[in-house]
């Protein structure tokens, strides 16, 4: 029917609008509205058909209920109607878009290559599901409902069904049994480990940048891997693992020992993620200040010996802040030139988020 056509057209238009304003959505956190599992609400003001109409706040209206003049009117704005009217209601100007669709748009806009999983060790696990139906089988797998349906079909077809005496007698031919179906479940096979410097020099703005970047990185990786796990590490002079919420809300002060985070990350990988089975993506964001050159050397050693041979890609994003020296990035560039699996990106401001996402994900690894 035509509505499918119209619906697809509408979805296309929504996607088109998002593409048009993509930069704005990427750089402004509030544009990516409430996140609900796999849906993201995105306000798309220009999708409504404009009309000459009264401003809503001025007009007011007639209502019903208790209350003295001056009392607030609570409840919803729209009348709760029990039955269909002749006009569709006011349109909310938010479109629900799946994260998958967003990732697709991101991929298209930045021309990101598909990710090649490391090796072909995509581990799929199988499980048995009794969802099939077959005309033969053991009695204990007999499926009553479909057997009954078959019997009913047969009796109606043969004319023996009487609505006044709706008895249906199944015969052997009607019986249906459950059969096993093998269902392949792709196992979670990729992990992103976010590390962030939460020392005093990382301000709100810097953290916002990290939050936005990680949202888009997650969206893209999720599209490429059926199951994606995320872990979060914050560090100043010491590192600890936290949940997502804490990750984005903590601010501490104190010194910075980057190696502490790297060591914790190593520990997590060793414990939970066998590099032969997992695609591993560590992301580290900091303002580039490290406590000592000694510690930086230590970090480089770790990268060279442990991380780079094992992970798909190690990403370091340096968020510029007015307090940070940015030394760490220079050190990395100097000591690890031409490393294939190390990506370094400098993020000067929110507007550079797009470029940095492209740096991180553009290699297709």
């Amino acid at each position, binding site marked *: *029917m*035509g*509505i499918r*056509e*119209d*619906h*697809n*057209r*509408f*979805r*296309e*238009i929504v996607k088109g609008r998002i593409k048009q304003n993509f930069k704005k959505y990427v750089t402004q956190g509030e544009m990516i509205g409430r996140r609900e599992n796999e849906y993201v609400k995105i306000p798309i003001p*220009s*999708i409504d*058909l*404009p*009309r*000459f*109409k*009264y*401003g*809503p*706040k*001025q*007009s*007011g*209206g*007639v*209502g*019903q*209920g*208790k*209350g*003295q*003049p*001056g*009392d*607030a*009117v*609570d*409840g*919803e*704005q*729209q*009348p*709760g*109607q*029990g*039955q*269909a*009217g*002749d*006009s*569709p*209601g006011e*349109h*909310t100007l938010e479109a*629900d878009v799946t994260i998958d669709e967003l990732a697709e748009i991101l991929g298209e806009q930045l021309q990101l290559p598909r990710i090649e999983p490391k090796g072909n060790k995509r581990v799929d696990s199988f499980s048995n599901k009794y969802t099939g139906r077959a005309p033969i089988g053991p009695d204990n797998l007999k499926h009553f409902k479909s057997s009954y349906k078959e019997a009913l079909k047969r009796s109606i077809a043969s004319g023996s069904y009487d609505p006044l005496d709706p008895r249906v007698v199944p015969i052997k031919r009607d019986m249906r049994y459950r059969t096993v179906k093998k269902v392949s479940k792709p196992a979670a096979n990729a992990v992103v480990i976010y590390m962030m410097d939460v020392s005093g020099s990382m301000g709100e703005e810097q953290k916002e940048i990290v939050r936005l970047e990680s949202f888009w990185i997650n969206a893209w990786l999720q599209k490429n891997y059926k199951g994606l796990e995320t872990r979060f590490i914050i560090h100043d002079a010491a590192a600890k693992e936290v949940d997502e919420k804490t990750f984005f809300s903590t601010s501490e002060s104190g010194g910075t020992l980057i190696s502490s985070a790297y060591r914790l990350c190593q520990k997590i990988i060793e414990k939970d993620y066998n590099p032969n089975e997992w695609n591993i993506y560590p992301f580290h964001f900091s303002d580039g200040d490290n406590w000592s050159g000694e510690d930086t050397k230590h970090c480089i050693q770790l990268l060279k010996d442990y991380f780079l041979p094992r992970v798909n890609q190690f990403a370091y994003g340096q968020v510029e802040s007015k307090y940070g020296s940015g030394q760490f990035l220079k050190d990395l560039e100097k000591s690890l030139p031409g490393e294939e699996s190390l990506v370094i990106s400098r993020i000067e401001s929110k507007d550079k988020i797009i470029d940095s996402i492209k740096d991180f994900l553009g290699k297709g690894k």
Partner: protein
Amino acid sequence: MANLTPELEKERRKIMKIAQDVGLDFYETIFEIVTYDQLNQIAAYGGFPVRYPHWRFGMDYEQLSKSYEYGLSKIYELVINTDPCYAYLMEGNEFIDQKLVMAHVYGHCDFFKNNAWFGPTNTKMMDQMANHATRIRRYMDRFGVEPVEDFIDVCLSLENLIDRHAPYVTKSKQDPNEEVVPQAVERHDGKLKVHKSYMEKYINPPEFVAEQQQKKAEEFRNQVQGVPENPEKDVLKFLMDHAPLAAWQQDVLSIIRAEAYYFAPQGMTKIMNEGWASYWHSRLMTEKIMNDSEIIDFADRHSGTMAMAPNGFNPYKVGIELFRNIEERWNKGQFGREWSECTRLDEKKAWDKKTNLGREKIFEVRKHYNDVTFIDEFLTEEFCVENKLFVYKFNQRTNEYEVDTRDFPLIKKKLLFQLTNFGQPIISVVDANHNNRGELLLAHMFEGIEMQPDYMKATMQNLQKIWGRPVHVATVVDKERVIIGFDGKDFDSVSLDQLPTGS
């Protein structure tokens, strides 16, 4: 889509008979059973199975589907005004729901057939809509989907600029033998009246006559030059006749306009129509149709339909209560001069002259009234108090809606204002040659509420696309009278000392 099951068909015959017995008079009504998905589709299409392709229907469909799937709302009933009437029942609703819906639908169908405001609508709209769809598809094949769709978008954004009362005005055809012609001649000959023929050459010397004739001719030309002669509320019609459009664009615009006019009476009689259908479903269900075991379910559904959100306005509720109120008043003779001049409350309360005209009266009301006249005539102060009606407004300071007043005249005024032109600004074409440069000037008849500026500007952009030349709207922005102009690139705003005061 499927026909009714034998059980429902039996019930339908029964209900139809009962409805006819109480005096309802309707076109043949065809019920079909549809799944919730089909119902959402049909609802997105405004009740029709086929519409022209447009993404807006897809948007409505998505919203309806989501809100149904999340359990926020559910469509019980859908009926369209055609002959025969088509009504849809949702598969899987309970038996009592289906009965209730059928009774409700017969109420609507009676209203469609008998209410005077539905008189001029096309009762074969089903075919017409399919016809429109074919035409638009053909244009899309020829000129491409996007150009046609973009143009539909433009038309739809002007869709509400029609003259809702135009279908009810039959313009008197001008009789060529009437005085119009001699008057024009008289106007042109420029002579003063002469009683005595010998005075002619003194009173009307040839030079004088020539001068007068020239003057008059100029006056006449000036008069004719104004397009439109009078402010034209049917902006769509005006654009069809005067905007530089390709043939297909003209046709698309005419389609949008025809459909807007088709849906207009439903908007004009919303309260009455729902009130009337609810009145009858409750009457028929409780008196004739239901059996004892169904009463609780019925009460539940019925009260759900009648519920009012705190600052909502439920046309079902207000409509049914007003009809009941009218019936009671006319049964007791609470009308006429004697009643309105009575000032004693106790006397009024006990007033019962046993006139028993109620039933007759409500049938009369459903025939001749629309929402505006209905509220204007039958909304009484007692009714407002009893139903706890109030006016609310938005408080800029607290950022909340709050109760403004419970004063009866103000409630009535507000309600009537909301209903007149469906609470939309009244806008008409005033001048198609504004500034003597072929620019279009519209005027907003300002009644105390300003238009939403961003929407206004976006709409003006669309208007400009159709008109081709710059467009202007005379309105009020931030309490200042202005003419907003858009020339295809930029907006400008000219302050007016004197706003053309509408009306």
